[in-house]
């Protein structure tokens, strides 16, 4: 019985952890999005490297998703992103590389604020909800255990 109870607590805590992991992944994605936008602004303005060459140097979830979306036109929202994140991402992908460097840089400057806002929300959510999900998972497990005993 003790072992079963222990397993239930571990399982529910793990579920809580999985929920909190989504928040971390979202924050990391938006953070990479923000950093990539800064980088591409420099590259487009200075070296004028093509997008795919810039993406070759990156190895993040964001760069992988962007590369896929460019090459295959695939639009499939990962489960850790909310609709607003993904809409912004698709808008970004659709504009990327379609005009001269001046217009591209103007766009990167404009979209920077939107990415920043989403990133701040994601950070706040992570700070607020991550411990909550973990605790909730643990206590739900504990409650089940108490009921069983």
């Amino acid at each position, binding site marked *: 019985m003790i072992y079963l109870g222990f397993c239930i607590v571990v399982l529910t805590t793990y579920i809580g952890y999985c929920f909190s992991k989504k928040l971390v992944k979202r924050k990391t994605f938006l953070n990479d999005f923000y950093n990539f936008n800064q980088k591409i602004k420099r590259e*487009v303005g200075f070296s*004028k*490297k*093509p*997008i*795919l*060459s810039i993406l070759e140097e990156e190895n993040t979830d964001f760069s992988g998703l962007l590369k896929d979306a*460019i090459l295959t036109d695939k639009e499939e929202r990962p489960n850790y992103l909310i609709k607003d994140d993904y809409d912004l991402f698709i808008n970004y992908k659709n504009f*990327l*590389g*379609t*005009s*001269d*460097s001046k217009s*591209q840089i103007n766009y990167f400057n404009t979209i920077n604020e939107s990415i920043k806002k989403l990133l701040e929300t994601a950070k706040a959510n992570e700070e607020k909800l991550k411990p909550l999900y973990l605790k909730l998972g643990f206590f739900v497990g504990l409650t089940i255990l108490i009921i069983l005993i």
Partner: protein
Amino acid sequence: MLSFLPERIKNEVDPIDLSEVYEIRLRKGQPIIINHKNSLKSVYNGKLTDEVDKGLIILKSDLEELIKRLTEFSVYSFNEQIKEGYLTSKDGVRVGLSGECVVENGKVITISSIHSVNIRIPHDIFGASNEIFKKITKDGLKSTLIISPPGQGKTTILKDLIRNLKILRQNILVIDERNELFSFSNCFADYIKNCDKLYAFNYGLRSLSPKIVITDEIMKKEDFLCVKSCIDSGIKIIATIHGNSIEKVKNKDFFIDNLFEKYILLKEFGRPGQIDIII
């Protein structure tokens, strides 16, 4: 070589032997036209056909896809080429563009709404320049102007000449404005690619100290002035120009007399590198 073609066009063109194809024309709403040994045909079910109306019709989306792939999804990277009316693929295939010129303050800033493209199939023909090489290196290398109408193999000859010139063991500067002349076979060659000739001449001569300069398609007064300053500095130059007679080229407004030591007119519709007249 034609990896930039949209899938449905690639499937049609892939079975064709490209060694005898000079150009592929894709025009919006029209069938593919293929210049096969200077005869215009279309392609139907992967085979060349004289019934051009049967050929695969090119859609707007095909051209958009093609431009995306050629520019590696980055128009900003290639806008200088687009302004000049062409794009060069990673493999050195030059694609001429026609569309609407966007003008700002009297200058073309880009070409938009591309409605047709001309894909020029490059051919590496080993030995295409042998005859010319012998003539221009007899008693020391001579500055040479190679003349022919478009599509008669000037670029093919220059690429092979770069290979042949290795024998001279001299530093060569290749001014490759359209990224078409790259050849792995000369360890004495430096390349300046994708940039305006005037800039390339200035910077290449100062920083790379060549003994020989090779460049494709000189066509403006400024190009001739660059060539002159090169020759005045004791550098040998091999260049090409569009034309169908030596006299007509010499009569151009911007032509500078006694600049080149040799003029070679290529035989029209002859084999690549076949000399018609040499002076």
